Structure formats: C-alpha cells, structure tokens
C-alpha cells in the first residue's frame, strides 16, 4: 500500500479513536491488509470490510458508518460540500451582521455573550421578527421608564436565546437516533409516540434481561471464597472412591436491597414514572422488596397489581385522584417520613422519580434532608436532560442535596438502574 493511502488510513483511525472506537495500530494494520486483499474499487465492500475490523458492537457500527461516510467521499461530493460550506459561511456572516444590528437597545448593544449572539443569529427569521415586534410594542415604556423597559426586553430576549441554545444542543445528540432499533434508546422518553410504547417496553424487557444477566454473571455464588460445604464434598467424593478431589463450597448469601420508590405522577411525569417503574420492578436481581408511593399534591401507596402494565397503571393513577394536580414534594416526603410503622429506615434506598418542579421548594428541600436522615441512601432519577439542569434552580438545589442521575432516555434509565444495582 502506498504512503498516501496509509497516511489517509491512519488519519481515519485517529478519527475513529476520537469517536471512542478501539482503533489502535493493530486494527489499522488489519484494515490495510484487508484493503490489499480486497482492493479499493468497490466502496461498499471496503466499508463492510473495514467495519468488520474496526467496530465491535452494533452501536460502534453506527459510529463507524457515520465516520466512514464523512471521511471517504468521492471527489465531486467533496467539491459540492466545499461549495455548500462556503455558501453557508457567507450566509452565517450576513446573519450575524443583521443580528448585531437587531441586538441593540436604546442605541447600545445588549449585554449578551458571543455564544448567545450566535444563537440569536441562528434563530429562524420569524422568531427574530417576533422579538423585534416586542421591542417595538413596548417602545412607549422606554420613554417613561427606560430601566424597566431595558430589563424586560433583555429578559424576553435572554429566554428566547436560551431556548434556541437548548434546541441547538439537542440537535447535536441525534447521531445514534438514526437506527430505529437503537434510536428509541436515545430519545427523550416524554417524546415517545403512543405507537412507539410497545417497542419501548420490549426494549426495556431486553435491557433488564441484560442487567439481570450481568448481575447473575457477577454473583454466580459458586466461588471458593465461602465456607466449605462438607456434606456435598463427601457425597461428591463417593464418585472417586472417597478421595476428595473436588471440593464444594457454600454459596455466599447476597443481601439484596430494600427499595422505596417515590414517583411523581403529576401530568407530564406519568409516562416517565411508568417507564422508570417498569425498569426498576423488572430488576428481580436488585431488590428483595420494594414499595412504591405515588404523589402529586398528596401521596398514596401503589397497589403492586396496578404496576403490571401501562393501562392498569394509568387507570390506577387516575382513580387515585392524584393525576393532574400540582406537585408537592415536601408534603409527600413529610408523610413518608411520618409513616408508622416506619417506611424509611437504615438499609432502605429511597429512589425519587421526579423532575424537581414542586411548590414550596424550600419546604421540599428541608423534607428531603429529613428523609436522608432516616434512610440509608437517596437517589434521584431526573427525566430532565442534564444539559438543561444549569438553567433550572430547583434541579440545582436538589442535586446539591442528594445523588441525582439524569434519566431522560431509556439508555440513561438503564445506566441509572445499573448504578443502583451495583452500588
């Protein structure tokens, strides 16, 4: 293989490494060998052969395909891309000049960072027009009270820009969502359509099977660290005329966790709570016993039969009269702490499924601290994507008090369950 080809192959390996694939020198050498054998005339064949060498799972195959399609391009496609890129750059520069003109308040530039300015420039024209409309609509106030006008307009612009930034951040997460099978794992749970729910449930079943499999593989209970099982050793030795060739060991008893689940079922949280409960309940290797409490304005203990399927769960939540009410986490935690006989005690792990949006945040925080005093451990599963946490005060408050795990997608929910089960 000639020098330029090898250089290009090494550069491709570096890109794959950056994307998290195991693309070391051995893999590059294998890829070169395969290319020498197969030739480079057939693009699809080259792609398949190199995919076999570099990617070691289905997820990695998707990453590889994305990298390959972006790296090995025909000459005309490269030229077209460059042309498009230049046009896009010109358009962006023009947009940013227009944005600079628009982000003026009383003749002075508004106080926004360069990132916020570029987010504003990337906003669709109609959204920017709406903001300019605001500017004009309240211009009369500017003469009466310039400070109030300035603060108000700034807050309106800041909010719109923040939403745009969130949209841009989310757009960058779509890589793995291209595959219909895996994609559902990486999508926001609250965005699932009704017809996708059976698929999501089957994925949950498969992932929980995996987690249970991992746990049973990790605790086979036949290690030699325990006590000698004398009776079984003697019985086995009868096979070999009484000589104890192979020793038998007692299984180590593993103490499983006692879980208390506190689920927010107010309006938009129902779908997430249902998925999360399904996940946790099906982890039969994790918990010895679990009790589930549902709350919104008040709290009620869930009947285990109501958790068997989604329809039963939703009916149960509606019948219990707590659906669609405001969320009062403080009151729920207080009544949980006040239960007699006690629900929260040492050795119990309290898992809270909530988006932290609650009335009377300070009372909720105090109740959470009280609950932490009662119980061994508190884990908060939050369906709000982690990149938004910095903008929400209630999330920041609660995250500073207990361990909070992001769970906006099934993939995150699965890794949260793994963390719960391992700890």
């Amino acid at each position, binding site marked *: 293989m000639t020098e330029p080809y090898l250089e290009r192959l090494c550069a491709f390996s570096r890109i794959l490494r950056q994307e998290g694939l195991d693309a070391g020198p051995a893999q590059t050498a294998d890829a070169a060998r395969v290319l020498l*054998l197969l030739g480079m005339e057939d693009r699809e064949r080259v792609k398949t052969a190199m995919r*076999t*060498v570099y*990617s070691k*799972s289905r997820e990695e195959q998707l990453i590889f395909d994305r990298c390959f399609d972006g790296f090995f391009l025909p000459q005309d496609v490269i030229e077209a891309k460059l042309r498009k890129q230049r046009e896009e750059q010109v358009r962006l520069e023009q947009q940013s000049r227009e944005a600079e003109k628009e982000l003026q308040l009383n003749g002075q530039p508004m106080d926004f960072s360069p990132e916020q300015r570029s987010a504003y420039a990337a906003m669709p024209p109609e959204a920017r027009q709406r903001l300019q409309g605001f500017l004009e609509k309240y211009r009369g106030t500017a003469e009466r009270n310039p400070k109030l006008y300035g603060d108000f307009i700034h807050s309106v612009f800041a909010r719109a820009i923040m939403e745009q930034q969130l949209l841009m951040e989310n757009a960058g997460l779509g890589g793995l969502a291209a595959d219909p099978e895996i994609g559902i794992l990486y999508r926001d749970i609250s965005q699932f359509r009704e*017809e996708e729910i059976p698929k999501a449930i089957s994925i949950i079943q498969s992932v929980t099977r*995996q987690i249970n*499999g991992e746990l*049973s593989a990790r605790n086979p209970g*036949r290690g030699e660290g325990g006590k000698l099982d004398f009776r079984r050793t003697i019985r086995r030795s009868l096979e070999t005329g009484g000589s104890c060739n192979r020793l038998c060991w007692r299984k180590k008893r593993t103490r499983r966790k006692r879980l208390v689940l506190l689920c927010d079922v107010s309006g938009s949280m129902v779908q997430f709570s249902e998925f999360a409960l399904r996940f946790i309940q099906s982890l039969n290797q994790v918990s010895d016993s679990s009790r589930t409490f549902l709350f919104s304005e008040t709290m009620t203990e869930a009947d285990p039969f109501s958790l068997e399927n989604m329809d039963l769960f939703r009916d149960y939540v509606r019948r219990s009269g707590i659906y669609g009410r405001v969320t009062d986490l403080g009151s729920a935690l207080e009544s949980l702490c006040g239960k007699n006989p006690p629900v929260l005690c040492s050795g119990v792990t309290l898992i809270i499924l909530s988006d932290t949006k609650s009335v009377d945040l300070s009372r909720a925080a105090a109740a959470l601290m009280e609950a932490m005093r009662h119980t061994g451990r508190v884990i908060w599963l939050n369906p709000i994507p982690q990149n938004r946490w910095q903008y929400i005060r209630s999330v920041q408050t609660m995250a500073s008090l207990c361990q909070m795990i992001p769970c906006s997608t099934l993939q995150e929910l699965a890794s949260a369950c793994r963390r719960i089960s391992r700890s």
Partner: protein
Amino acid sequence: MTLDQLKHWLDQAHYIYDETLATVLYVALELGRPLLIEGAAGVGKTEIAKVMAGVLDRELVRLQCYEGLDESKALYEWNYQKQLLAIQINRETVDRDGLTKQLFSDEYLLERPLLRSIRSEKPVVLLIDEIDKADEEFEAFLLELLSEMQVTIPEIGTIKASSIPLVVLTSNRARPLSEALRRRCAYVYIDYPDLEKELAILRAKLPNADDRLRVQVAQAVQKLRGQEAILKKPSIAEALDWTAALEAMGVRELTPKILKTTAGFVLKNNDDIAAAFSGEGGDMP
C-alpha cells in the same frame, strides 16, 4: 482463497447470503480472527458456523455455553476414576515420580471441545454458541485461546494449536460482552432478512413447497415483524416451520382462517397472537 471463491463455495452449499456477510466471513478467515456474530434469536447465527464447516470441509466442534460453564466442561478434565484405578493397580510400584507423571499424561486427559479443536491435526470450525449465557469468568478464560490460539493446563503446560480453527462465537445480546473479548474478534450483526432474502431462503430450504405459498408466508412474516405490538418477532426458523406445516396440511393459499389456525407456528405467545389479529393488526395478507 479469494472473495469470489468463497462466494462460489457458499453458492454450492445453497446458502443464502448477502454481500456484507460474505465480505465479513472472508475478512475473518483471511485475518484469522474469531468471528463474533450478534443478532436476535433465530436469524441464522449458528447456521453460519455449520455452513462454514461444510464449505471449508472441516469438522464442526460445538461448545454450547450456559451459566456455570467452566473449564472442566469446556477445555479438559482429568479422568479421576481411571487415575484411581491406576494408583490401585500400581500400588506396589517403586517409581512414584514416574507414576505421578504417568497419571497426568494424555492417557488420563478427557478432551473437551476447546482442547479438541486446537489439538486437531486438521483445522476445524469451533462454534462457541450463546457466549452471552456463560459467566464473565469464562469469557476471560477464553481470551488466551482467542488471541494466542493456545491454552494452559497447569499439570502439562501450554498447548499451542496444531492447526488454527475458525472460531465462531454467537450471542443474543442477553448481556454485554467484555471489551477484551470483542477486541479480539471480527464483528457482525445479523438482522432479520428482507422479503427478497427470506423468499430465497424459503425456496432454498423448502424446494418442494408451492411457490405462491412461500411468497405469501414471506410477506406475512415480514408484516408480522413490522408490527410494533408483537414483542417476539418471528424468526427465519419459524417461517420455515410454518411453511412446512402449511405444505403438510395441503394448504395452497393463506386465508385469514388458515392464518388464525396456524399462527402458533410463527407466533409463540398468546399476547403476540392477540396483537396480530386484533383491530388494525388483523389485516395480514
């Protein structure tokens, strides 16, 4: 061997493959890498090893994995009974060291699939089936074999492979496999076949069945797989069973009535059958 040669052999074995699978098999063979095949149950992962054994004219050595599988079942075991008998017989012997050496020789070694595959004079195809069912310790134990093609027996020492076997590992993704194991393998994921490939498989495996029936079965199976509400999707094996059953019943056309009465061949739980025939799901061909 060239890729075209491999394809020719696969054709001769009447194996239905696509370009991707042929390339992957060729790469694994040429690099001498174990091939890790993942995919849903019943898509033909095990079949690949069987076909490769036939195509390459090699013996197929199969190791079925399960929870608790250890090296005494997979690699070797000493024949304790025979050793005890030998001790009894040679009780009066003076050369104790010689006896000990003899007791741990090949004569008393019970070969299990892994050892058999690397000690075979002629190269074999070693199928390690459902590796995800085995424990993590067993996976770690396989690493030496997969990367160095050798195994170590404490009493004998390291045994290097007399011939390099083609190793095929299959997994249903019941649990994620370790990075170390994956790194040593060439990887391929097999999905359910499309209509064209499914029909080609039905034609190849059931040459005597009515072609109209095969088309209808293939279309019905594709449609069933496309239904979100069906959790256990019908596999290729089930499509073959279904066609064979319909053929045996003398059915020439798949009517809704026949579909309902024979659905048990293709859908293996009650919820899936109910989902397939209820409401919008009932409009199968």
